[in-house]
Every structure is written in structure tokens, then in C-alpha cells.
């Protein structure tokens, strides 16, 4: 089983915890209590490996760190995004302001993590409030605006609704597949290099190398 570390970042009240709960417990509360510090949850998904001959699914486990959104908790964030394989940067599509906060997070991740393999996913939440058939469209951030930015920065991009569940599973699925792909390539190249070594007992390091030193990150 593969295990990946995933972190959620974004402004207060954009729906980070709701997205996680939709994914992990498939439930939704209109008013989910504020997260303080950070919350830890885990969930597994199955990935079908299309390229290989085996029909069996691969199970991967997400180790999810859901962080608090208030500015003052920002100083704790490095601890959670350090060694992360993927970061979900969430904004609220009904709040223009939250997109710029998300962009700050993307910048911070790019500056501080400095890892090519970190997958950053830009996630617009509260799609249910923007039903175009309804008159009460509260959309404040146009899809194109975020999409263009995401392409510029080479991010994954989705719009989802934690309330209806629309798109949430897909996000985690595609992140999982992408991480699995990266992992597989890594393993293959490793295997190529040390072809002579033992096969199935290879203990693959699933996470990127870490410095175990808590002082190494900038708070």
C-alpha cells in the first residue's frame, strides 16, 4: 500500500474541513465548526493501473492534514506542508478575496517547499451556490480567471461542492493517480539502476526524504 501526505490550505471559512469530511466520511454539515491548529484524518482509495497487466487495484492511503484558516495559524503551516506530496489550496468561489489568499499560499509553497514533485491543486469550493439555472448566482470568481492562473502556475484545477459532493471524489482520485504515476516512475528508475537487488522485499520509501529537524523550517 502506498501512503501519501496531503495538506489543505486556504482562507478561513472556504470549506477546507467540509471537503475533507465529504471525502472521508461522505457527510456534510452546513456549519462545520472552525478548525483550531490542525486536524488529521486518513482515507484510502483504489487506483486502477491501466498500463500494467494485472487487473488488481492498487490501494493508496491519504494522510490528510486539515489546517486552520485564520492568518495567525499560518506560522504552523510549514510543519504540515513540509514533506507533503500534495497540497490542496482551497478558495471560495463566492469570495473574490479568498482567491488572492489562495495565490499567496501557492507562492509560499513554491518558494518554501522547492520540490518539483509537490502536486499543488487549486480548488474552488461552494459550486452549489453558483447554480446558473437559479437566479441567486453568488459567483464572484469566474472559472476562467482561476483556470488561467492555474495553467500559468502549472497547478491542477477543479471547482467542487462539498455540500453536494460534486467533484470532490474526482479531485482526490486524480491526485492519487498522479502521485501513483510519479511513484511508479521513481520505482522503475530505481529498479533500473539496481536491477540486481532483491525484488519483492524492496522497502520503498514512499515519502520524499525529510529533514527530521523541526527547526529547519521557517516559522
Amino acid at each position, binding site marked *: 500500500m502506498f501512503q501519501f501526505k496531503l495538506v489543505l490550505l486556504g482562507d*478561513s471559512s472556504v470549506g477546507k474541513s467540509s471537503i475533507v469530511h465529504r471525502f472521508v466520511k461522505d457527510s456534510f454539515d452546513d456549519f462545520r465548526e*472552525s*478548525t*483550531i*491548529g*490542525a486536524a488529521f484524518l486518513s482515507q484510502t482509495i483504489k487506483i486502477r493501473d491501466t498500463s500494467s497487466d494485472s487487473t488488481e487495484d492498487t490501494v493508496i492511503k491519504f494522510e490528510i492534514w486539515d489546517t486552520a484558516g485564520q492568518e495567525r495559524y499560518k506560522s*504552523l503551516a510549514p*510543519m504540515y506542508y513540509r514533506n507533503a506530496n500534495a497540497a490542496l489550496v482551497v478558495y471560495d468561489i463566492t469570495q473574490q478575496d479568498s482567491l488572492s489568499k489562495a495565490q499567496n499560499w501557492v507562492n509560499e509553497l513554491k518558494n518554501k517547499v522547492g520540490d518539483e514533485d509537490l502536486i499543488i491543486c487549486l480548488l474552488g469550493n461552494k459550486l452549489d451556490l453558483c447554480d446558473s439555472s437559479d437566479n441567486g448566482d453568488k459567483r464572484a470568481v469566474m472559472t476562467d480567471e482561476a483556470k488561467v492562473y492555474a495553467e500559468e502556475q502549472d497547478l491542477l484545477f477543479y471547482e467542487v461542492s462539498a455540500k453536494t459532493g460534486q467533484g470532490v471524489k474526482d479531485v482526490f482520485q486524480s491526485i492519487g493517480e498522479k502521485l501513483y504515476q510519479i511513484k511508479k516512475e521513481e520505482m522503475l528508475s530505481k529498479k533500473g539502476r539496481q536491477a540486481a537487488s532483491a525484488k519483492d522485499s524492496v522497502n520503498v*520509501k514512499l515519502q520524499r526524504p*525529510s529533514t527530521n529537524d523541526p527547526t529547519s523550517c521557517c516559522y
Partner: protein
Amino acid sequence: MDTLVGAESPSLSSSEESLSLHCDILADSLFDEKSLLNFFNEQEQRDFKTSVIRNILHDRNYKTLCTLGMSNFGFVSTPLRKECWFELLSRQLRVSQGSGYTTNKGCTREHRDENQVSLDVQRSFTSVTDEGRKEKLRKLLERIIVKILRRYPKLSYYQGYHDVVSVFVIVFIEGHDYDDECNFLSLSGMTSKSDDNHSNGAAEDKSNGVSSSTTDLYENETTSKIGFDEDKLLRCVEAFTLLYLRDFMMDSLDFPIDQLRLIPEFIKKNSKAFYKKLNLDKIEPFFAISSILTVFSHELKPSENEPDSLIFQIFDFVISSQSMVVPLAMYATLIMEKKDTIIEAYNANIDNFENSVDLVHGVIQQVLVPTRCAEKIWKQILEEVRSNPSREHISKYRGLVNRYSTLLTTASGQLHTSYEVEDVIKLLEKEIALNSKRKTSKAHAKLHKTNTMRTFARLFSSRSFPLICKVSIFVGMLAIFMKLYRDGSIKAMLPTLRIYLKKYQCSSFAGLYRGLNYVWLDPLHELLKNPSLPRWASKVSRSISSSKDSDF
């Protein structure tokens, strides 16, 4: 409430007369774990304690009230709790009549964090099922927080503060069908009546002249039912905020993080092996942050339906002992209590997490989440803390927190101390100044990571660095200078130094100079390489003086 007033159990009521005389003597031992009272069943004990507390409240015996709050059952029931909290907190933070605080009512300028407050309040009281009630609770919560923030604009709001305040809201709203308009009407209506009853005792505690209403339980049983006293609630929240939560209300997390560092120290004292196992010497204990910032009210949500919830007794204990060390000690006890489970989970997950920070945080979170609903474990921890009150003085950990911290001043566990609001505001201002100073020095440290002088300074000032090493470094340096002196090379080096100095002066005017540190390192380096000193020194000085011509 009526049932509680006359509910002394038959077997105990006869002793009530003498009881009020000896309450303070009794209170010390009466309600601890090994008390004789355990002979009676729990309800009887509760009833007995209720009547004792009523007497104490009546006599305004502050010291005994503290003792009672720290013993079994805390302040027993919500109606009593409300009175006791007010009695204690209004005593701990004195607001004198003529202070600017009372006249400062017109302070309506919006606080910078109000937006965040409303975001969090919208998501509070999630367990309340009645929508109307929930709405009212939320409105009240928001109003209280905003009032406090506007009154003390220097405080910064943090997510979690709303959890703490919601505990007070739940306690004070007990028994009231809270209604905005009705509240003020009934308050003003009953003022005159209650003033006659007991103006002398209550007057000193009052922040404004209107509200000396419900201090005494006996007379005002009925009035307190009609009117909800928002002023009292506000006074309690104000005192708790300023005296207990001040460290958390800076604009950064530095001071709360300082406080958290006490937790590993407590664990270390308990079991060094466990401390080592969890790598607590290397890991910051951020996993405790929500518990400490909210005094456990984030984990144990207060609810009107559960007046016996242990969260209230935790607050009883904290307020009675006037100590914010209590939550830290409780957290350490919780970890120790769950030691085996944590070790088990740690070993099971050791391969799943690549680094120990994630491992420990993940494991502790996973182990502690189920305890949220488990009354039993909290009861156990409270008992533990009650029987072993951390008598050891916080001064031992003085170096870990800032010197104006609540842990060292207003909530240090020093019983029966009271503060003037003006003094506390001064403390607050000093703390804020210290916090911003620290922030700038941190930013500075980030810019200049390799500052030799500071490393040296830290090396010599830090307590962990053994004296013997300091001495040996000193002796070593002394020896080098002695050798130089005896060889007469100090004299030879002087011209070199002069040249360097001149060079430094010139270039520092132009803002070009960068390498002061190396002036000292280079000659020493050469010195160690080259044993024949005088020759070397003269060579260098010659070469330098020749380069001097080309330089200038």
C-alpha cells in the same frame, strides 16, 4: 432551581447550623477523593456541597470558595456555578468605579477581527438542535466577543476564543429564555428592589450602578429567572480574557507556543523513557494547541443539555486555582494516561510516516480524538489533577515563557490575588511590545542566518551549555593570546590590524564592507598552519603593506 434550594438530604440537614460556622475548616478535606463523605451516595454529596456553597456565597468567604471549586464536583450545578464564577472573577479582576472602563461605553469603533469573529460564531453551537435557540446563543456569543474586543482594541482575536466564551454563555444563559428586548426591560425593572436587599456587599464589585441585582441567591431566586444578566456575563468573560487568556491574544502564536513547551517538561518529569520515545526533545508540541488555546472547550463542547459536563468542572478548577498551568498539566496527564495506547499506535504506524514529527502528531491526534466523548477519562484526569495539584512553582520554567506571561503573573496559581484592571492593561501592553519585538528579531534572524557573534553569545548565555565547556573555551583562547604575546607577535600584528581597520573604515563609509568576521579568522588560520610565527607575521605585514600601495 427550586429543587436545589431545599434539597439537603435528611441525614445531613441537621448539621447545617454548625456547618456554616466551620465551613472553611471543613472545606479543605471534605470533598476530596478520600473523604468520609464517600459513605453517602453521589446525590447526597452533591446536595450537601450545594448547601455548603450557598452558605459560603452568603458569607462571601472567598478563600473557601476557591477550595470548594477545586474539589470534587466543582461548583456542582449551573445556577451555583454562575454565582461562584462571578464572585471569584470579579474579585480577581477589580474594576474600580471611576476608571475609564466604566465610562468607556461609547466605544463603537469596529475591531479589526470582527469579520473573523462572525465567521466563527456562525459555526458555533453546532450541537444545539433548536434552530431558534441556536440563533439566539450565537447572537449573544458574537455580541459578547465584540464588546470585549472593542473595549480592549489591543487584544487580537484567535479562532478558539469563541469556544472559551461559549462556555460562559452556556453557563450564564441557563434557565433563561433569552430574549434581547425582554432582557433589558427586566433588568432595569428589578434594580431598585434588589438594591435594598444588599447594597453594601455587592457595591464594590459593580462596574456600573445599574446592575447590583443577582448576587445573593436567596432573595433573588425569582428575579434571576426573569432577567438574564448580561453585565455579569461580560464581567466574567472580561476577567477571564485579561487574566487567563492574555498570552493567546497577541497577534502571533509565539506566546501560546511558549506555553505548550511546558507540556513535554511535565511528561519528562513523569517518564523520561516515554518522553524520549516520542522524541519530545526534538518535536514542538503543536498537537496540544487547540486544547490549550480553548482550555479544552474545543474538545469538550459545552451544551445546555449536559450541565454536568466535565468542561464546566475544568473551568471551575482553573478559575478557583487561578492558574493557567492547570490546562497544561492536565494535557500532560492526559498523554500519560493514554501512554500505552499511544505507544501501541506509535509502533503500529512507525512505517507509515516518514518523519517523526508527522508520526507523533498523527498518532496523538488519532488517540485523543475518541477521548472527546469519553467522560470517564476526563473524570480520571480531573481527579488526578485534584489530588496532585502542581504545587511546584512555575518559576522553575521561568525561562520558557515571557516574563509578563499569564503563567508568571495573573494566572500563576497564586491563590487569592487580585488585580486592578489598569495594572493588567499595563501588563498587556508590555506583553504586546515584547511580542512585536520578538517578531522583528525573528525576521532579522531569518535575514542573517550566520551571525557568528550571536552564536557565541547564545553559546555562553544558554544554560544548557555546561560551564566546563565555557571554561575550556576561555582557557584555550587565553592560551593562544599568551603564546602570541610571548612570541612578541602581538606587536608584529599591530600594523596588520591597523591596515585592516583603515580598510574597514574606508569601505564602510562607502557601504561596501562585508567581511568583518574574516579579519580575525584568517590570521588565526595562518597561525595554526605556520609554527614559525615571527617570520610569518613580518611576511604578512610586508605583503600587506605592499598591497596597501596598490589599494589606496
